[in-house]
């Protein structure tokens, strides 16, 4: 904890005496308050008010990169637990419905004797209870207000910083030249009121800086600011940021009418949120050759052709067979009724599996719908999701490894997928989200995969993937398992190997699920080779590339021993050279 004690926080008047958080009315921003934690050298060591609700004139825009502390959106407490409070109250009210109706309509015949409410009424304690409830509500609202007050962030030339917490305060600072990406998430409920959360991805476990929640417009601006500062560009880019924010409303047709009233603006925000769900969240990139989109039909078809479906079919067949055998053969021994009950019981076993499968499929399809990959000057921008939309930005040089693969069921359709090793900044407990972040292209034709590869790896490497990796003609160039090791890979020995190119090491493996891993030399951490006694007897060895943890296969076994030693040495040399030449931690070309 680097911040000294902040005297004004404990001295805050307790909850209730201050106004609850309110959306600042236009023209009347919250009065600026001194923030004791801000360094004296900071040009504007003042708490800037939260400003610029969506679609406000540009004159009210705040500069978020001024190094001063800024607060989150005032509706943040609502999204971070306040919603739960409202739901609790709603549930309570729903349970009181009978009583309320009973009060209004005396003949309704409400007989709720014996519940705590009657006990309170009969002992004349209702005033006390009401006061208690009021007190709890005020304290809760106060706490939410306080936590909003102290939750703030700042962006300097070198780092992005966020601090939060009333009792347990925390402050997190992430250097900009180490950031691994920026994710902008629009969760379903939050986007209805025009909010988004911004996640600055760091390298490590649980290393992300989360800015939640911001108005979508500010989140987009802050993302552009962070990426601009992280890229090393000194001058502000004029083109991408401003039109991007403005144009996002244009295709939806929502006229930015200057509705003055709060209700009007709220309605506009909600309608904007809905039209965004229909029309797509992010502004399209202008050069169409740099965009790859996945059609919803193909997403659905590819997901239905996944191993999960195979397992479901297998399970259904087994259960049906078991149920019919039990019913027909059991009828002789225990009677028709009991055996039928057995059969029905067995069929009931299908229900949870089918339900689980359906939920999984729905989730996959909702997540992957409207998938698009576009190249921006800050790297790849991947957008996906129907209800909750996520936009990842993967700056150049943040790719540690990549795998192009084709499950068996996709082969007749010629579909492929791309998964990558990247820093997600998630902890092990958040592994559910890692899967999304490490999928670059969930499904695509050969041509689309080729285009995505061109966006993310050097041209000559991208061009080598299909001809040498998967075409029969290119097989001769792959250093693959010698025939003496064929018994170790009976199906794939002819393709199980590696290809050393100028920019990356390619590992090819698998005949049933065909796959090719690609490791840019500049991001290989180390390279290793192994050999056991059996392999030595056959002059074989294993090659392994050490990359960060991720879905990409890093190992090829049963290769010729001389090949392995040669590629071990060559990779070690190439890694050092590429790392020395690598400048992607500051990827901007200018200054």
């Amino acid at each position, binding site marked *: 904890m680097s911040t000294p004690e902040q005297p004004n926080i404990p001295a805050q008047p307790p909850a209730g005496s201050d106004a609850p958080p309110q959306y600042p009315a236009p023209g009347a921003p919250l009065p600026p308050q001194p923030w004791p934690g801000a360094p004296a050298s900071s040009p504007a060591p003042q708490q800037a008010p939260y400003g610029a609700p969506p679609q406000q004139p540009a004159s009210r825009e705040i500069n978020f990169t001024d190094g001063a502390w800024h607060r989150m959106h005032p509706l943040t407490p609502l999204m971070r637990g306040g919603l739960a409070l409202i739901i609790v109250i709603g549930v309570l009210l729903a349970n009181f419905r009978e009583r309320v109706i009973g009060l209004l309509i005396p003949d309704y015949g409400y007989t709720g004797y014996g519940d705590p409410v009657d006990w309170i009424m009969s002992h004349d304690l209702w005033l006390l209870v009401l006061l208690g409830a009021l007190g709890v509500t005020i304290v809760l609202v106060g706490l939410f207000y306080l936590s909003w007050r102290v939750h703030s962030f700042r962006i300097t030339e070198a780092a992005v910083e966020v601090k939060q917490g009333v009792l347990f305060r925390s402050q997190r600072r992430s250097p900009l030249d*180490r950031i*691994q990406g920026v994710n902008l998430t629009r969760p379903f409920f939050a986007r209805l009121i025009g909010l988004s959360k911004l996640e600055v991805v760091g*390298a490590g476990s649980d290393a992300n800086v989360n800015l939640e929640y911001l108005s979508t417009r500010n989140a987009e601006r802050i993302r552009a600011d962070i990426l601009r500062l992280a890229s090393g560009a000194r001058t502000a880019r004029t083109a991408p940021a401003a039109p991007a924010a403005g144009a996002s409303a244009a295709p939806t047709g929502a006229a930015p009418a200057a509705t003055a009233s709060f209700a009007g603006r709220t309605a506009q925000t909600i309608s904007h949120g809905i039209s965004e769900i229909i029309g797509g969240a992010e502004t399209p990139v202008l050069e169409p050759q740099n965009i790859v989109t996945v059609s919803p039909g193909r997403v659905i078809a590819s997901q239905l052709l996944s191993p999960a479906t195979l397992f479901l079919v297998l399970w259904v067949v087994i259960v049906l067979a078991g149920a019919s055998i039990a019913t027909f053969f059991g009828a002789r021994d225990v009677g028709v009724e009991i055996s039928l009950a057995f059969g029905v019981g067995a069929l009931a076993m299908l229900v949870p599996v089918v339900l689980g499968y359906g939920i999984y499929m729905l989730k996959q399809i909702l997540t992957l719908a409207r998938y698009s990959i576009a190249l921006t000057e800050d790297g790849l921008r991947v957008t996906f999701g129907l209800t909750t939309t996520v936009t990842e930005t993967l700056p150049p*040089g943040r790719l*540690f490894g990549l795998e192009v693969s084709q499950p068996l069921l996709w082969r007749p359709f010629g579909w492929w997928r791309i998964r990558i090793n990247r*820093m997600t900044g998630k902890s092990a407990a958040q592994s559910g989200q890692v899967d999304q972040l490490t999928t670059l292209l969930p499904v695509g034709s050969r041509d689309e995969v080729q285009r995505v590869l061109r966006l993310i790896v050097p041209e000559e490497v991208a061009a080598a993937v299909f001809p040498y990796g998967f075409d029969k003609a290119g097989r001769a160039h792959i250093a693959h398992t010698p025939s003496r090791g064929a018994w170790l890979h009976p199906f794939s020995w002819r393709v199980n190997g590696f290809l050393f190119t100028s920019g990356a090491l390619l590992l090819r493996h698998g005949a049933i699920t065909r796959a090719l891993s690609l490791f840019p030399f*500049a*991001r290989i*951490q*180390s*390279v*290793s*080779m*192994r*050999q*056991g*006694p059996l392999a*030595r*007897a*056959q*002059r074989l*060895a294993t090659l*392994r590339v*050490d*990359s*960060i*943890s991720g879905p990409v296969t*890093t190992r090829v076994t049963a290769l010729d*021993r001389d090949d*392995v*030693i040669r590629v*071990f*040495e060559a*990779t*070690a*040399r190439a*890694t*050092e050279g590429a*790392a*020395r030449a*690598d400048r*992607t*931690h500051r990827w901007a070309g200018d200054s």
Partner: protein
Amino acid sequence: MTIPPEPQPQPNPILDEGTFPTLRETSSPARLTIGDGRWHQISPRYVVEQLLVNLVGLAVIAVVGYFVWQQVENPLILIPFGLIALGFLLTLVILPRQARAYGYRLREDDIVFRRGILWQRFVAVPYGRMQLIDITHGPLDRAFGLAQLKMVTAAASTGLAIPGLPQRAAEELRDVLVEVAETRRTGL
């Protein structure tokens, strides 16, 4: 200290003081090797230390096994204890050979670490990839004047951990690696 160009025929006064003189490996021509150069090795005291640890483990297993046998009075109960004891015995037999197979080499751009005779493993880590260096020595290590040095990269699978270094050599190696890495610092 700067890294002398390969090969380094003459021993380094600090890194090679009190370590094994020659590397142990199989004679099979199909074994894994890399070009000429000097392998720095670990201390023979590591063998003594590990022998002690394994003998103590063996003794504990024998005593516990004996008492359990007295209680249960069924000789079959000795089978799991026998298996564990066999494991310790095997380690005891292999240890002196295995310890001679640990080696590291400081090349111009990377450090190469090797271990194992029957199951060989080589790993090459460019200096610039180093994230941090750990030196650990437990109470027994301290009694023998030993330390374990671990070099961590962004990949968990790098697994470069050199046990049984003389303490002075471990500190010297750490300083060298940090110094060289400093001049070659790159992105992740």
